[in-house]
């Protein structure tokens, strides 16, 4: 067997032999999106240089440090769950679409809400005007859920709700429908986005000041840990961090920093780390255009997360060491020019998400730039997932890149840079301090600007956009989805009818209870969820519940400083 000394000698001979070719490559420098230089070929020498140790750095799937995968069998045991973000304005329309998608091959309803819902406003609130149902499901009461989930069996379906500020409302609705359908809490499968910190950094759909937002998250952790064994009350985001411009190194750093902030808040309240750890999930970023780097990033993040949970948080349950990836495709990775190219981009993304060992995935649709997706476009995305899962054989081997000289070197490099970023955040007072000071926003804005310059100089090549452009005529899909503007009036009438028909004395009592708890200090005794659950079952609306919180805590006003 060749020794490293022999390999080194052979490599030097190779470099001499091909020196002319090396100085004639297509670019002077090949770097990843984060700026990590890529060599043309990797060997055992690179692993030696990085101090790579197989058992310490990779080990075996399912075991610490989880680098290869969080389960021993990967996709041989269970394929990733294919899902597609979707929602239509009216409850009955969402119901129809979700039934269609279940038939097309998914077991998860990944709920896309309209913006008023995401901001905790009823359809008749002044701030909801023009936005009701435009980008998704307008859901302001349990009544809407009853219509939307009529004939959808929660024994068989998981739900993922993209709801952040008002998340407790969504959790309550899910549990209330489950009760109506006779699904036990032990069997209820659900996921909530509920990552309020990323709203304050990147996505900007916050409601309350950060401390109160965090209080609600801890409330949900506490409740889920005690009552819902198959539930994930949070998916900590890397994808939104990337979507606002961050490089892979930075989107991973901020994502992990936020995860640790959430866990620390729970621990500070006295929740056992091993009660919460098994319920953590992430929506990390995977961009098809930084293919190898993104795989290395997710491997590195699995390793870092396992290490921090075991060593810093002292988690004993191996389920707490696992970073679960619900990997979504980023809309900004698709383009409007030559839009059918997006189907190809989506397929590449799915391959990458699978090679990185995602537990669940979701794609954007080829008509991303023209509106919210048509039914056909959504299902096309699902098909991309089915094709990669069933036709390619990628799923036959767990972490096929394990041991690769290149991939292990790059994984180590990503790990080093992310750890550096986390250490820098700690030096600056910790994750929450970096949010409050605008430090994270500043890094992301800088990355965004650099990215734009590289696109404009075609240093980052994008087919149809800055290379291989079409003549001036723009092609667009024959069918584009537009929400019927009449839905706004329908939704307003619906909520006003609900308010007339329900037991308003009961609602008032429930809302008063919520307000009282909100005005009391944060604690396990003052956990808001049970009161929100009662209010939801009494048909209090999302706007009414959030108004109790808004009037008590105030709304978050972002500084408009240009970072």
């Amino acid at each position: 067997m060749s020794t490293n000394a022999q390999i080194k000698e052979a490599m030097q001979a190779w470099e001499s032999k091909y020196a002319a070719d090396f100085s004639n490559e297509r670019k002077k420098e090949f770097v990843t999106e984060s700026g990590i230089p890529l060599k043309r070929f990797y060997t055992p020498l690179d692993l030696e240089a990085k101090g790579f140790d197989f058992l310490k750095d990779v080990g075996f799937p399912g075991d610490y440090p989880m680098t290869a995968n969080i389960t021993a069998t990967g996709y041989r045991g269970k394929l990733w769950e294919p899902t597609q973000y979707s929602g239509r304005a009216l409850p009955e329309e969402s119901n129809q679409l979700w039934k269609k998608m279940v038939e097309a091959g998914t077991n998860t309803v990944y709920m896309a809400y309209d913006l008023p819902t995401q901001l905790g406003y009823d359809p008749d609130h002044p701030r909801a005007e023009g936005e009701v149902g435009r980008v998704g499901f307008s859901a302001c009461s349990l009544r809407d859920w009853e219509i939307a989930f009529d004939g959808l069996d929660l024994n068989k379906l998981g739900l993922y709700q993209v709801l952040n500020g008002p998340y407790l409302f969504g959790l309550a609705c899910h549990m209330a429908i489950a009760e109506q359908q006779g699904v036990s809490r032990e069997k209820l499968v659900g996921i909530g986005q509920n990552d309020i910190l990323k709203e304050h950094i990147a996505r900007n759909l916050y409601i309350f000041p950060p401390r109160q937002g965090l209080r609600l998250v801890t409330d949900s952790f506490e409740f889920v840990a005690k009552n819902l064994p198959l539930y994930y009350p949070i998916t900590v985001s890397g994808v939104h961090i990337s979507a606002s411009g961050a490089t892979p190194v930075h989107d991973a750093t901020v994502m992990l920093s936020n995860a640790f902030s959430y866990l620390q808040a729970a621990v500070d309240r006295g929740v056992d780390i091993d009660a919460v750890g098994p319920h953590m999930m992430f929506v990390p970023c995977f961009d098809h255009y930084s293919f190898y780097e993104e795989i290395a990033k997710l491997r590195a993040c699995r390793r870092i997360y396992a290490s921090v949970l075991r060593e810093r948080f002292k988690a004993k349950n191996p389920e707490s060491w696992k970073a679960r990836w619900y990997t979504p495709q980023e809309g900004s990775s698709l383009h409007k020019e030559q839009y059918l190219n997006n189907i190809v981009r989506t397929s590449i993304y799915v391959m990458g998400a699978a090679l990185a060992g995602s537990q669940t995935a979701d794609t954007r649709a080829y008509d991303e730039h023209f509106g919210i997706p048509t039914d056909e476009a959504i299902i096309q995305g699902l098909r991309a997932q089915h094709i990669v899962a069933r036709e390619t054989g990628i799923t036959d081997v767990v972490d096929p890149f394990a041991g690769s000289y290149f991939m292990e070197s790059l994984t180590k490099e990503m790990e080093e840079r992310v750890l550096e970023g986390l250490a820098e955040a700690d030096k600056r007072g910790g994750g929450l301090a970096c949010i409050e000071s605008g430090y994270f926003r500043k890094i992301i804005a800088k990355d965004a600007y650099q990215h734009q310059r590289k696109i404009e100089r075609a240093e980052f090549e994008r087919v149809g956009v800055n290379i291989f452009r079409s003549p001036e005529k723009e092609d667009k899909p024959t069918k584009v989805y537009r929400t019927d503007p009449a839905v706004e009036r329908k939704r307003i009438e619906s909520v006003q009818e609900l308010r007339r028909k329900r037991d308003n004395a009961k609602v008032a009592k429930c809302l008063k209870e919520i307000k009282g708890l909100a005005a009391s200090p944060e604690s396990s005794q003052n956990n808001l969820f049970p009161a929100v659950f009662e209010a939801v079952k009494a048909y209090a609306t999302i706007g009414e519940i959030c108004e109790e919180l808004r009037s008590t805590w105030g709304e978050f006003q972002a500084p408009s400083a240009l970072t």
Partner: protein
Amino acid sequence: MEKKIRVMLSKVGTDTHDRGVKIIARALRDAGLEVIYIGLYQTTEQLVQAAVQEDVDFVGVSSLNGGHMTIFPDLVEGLKKAGRGDIHVLAGGVIPQHEALELKQRGVADVFRAGTNTGDVVNFIKAHAH
């Protein structure tokens, strides 16, 4: 001394994706323009008021949510009503080509759709400032 060109930038309503508008802001600043970014969740009324108060030369909104056929005509109208129809309105974001043309007919100075080079925005502003 030549008066600096003043540009106000904003997001309107619940359209909170601010990556693009911040990139434009930085590019304009780097090109020597004075930029006032008033942030998220503005109404067109608030924006008109702010633009008049700050006496800017240009006001630009990045619209990614499909609300452009309301926002920009309202902005043009609002500035006229406030006696400042001379302030140029710039539109950016996700705007279909035919609607971009219509907006220009309705008084928007120019429309910079997603994918525009930041240099083009700078050049337009410098060419049209008086």
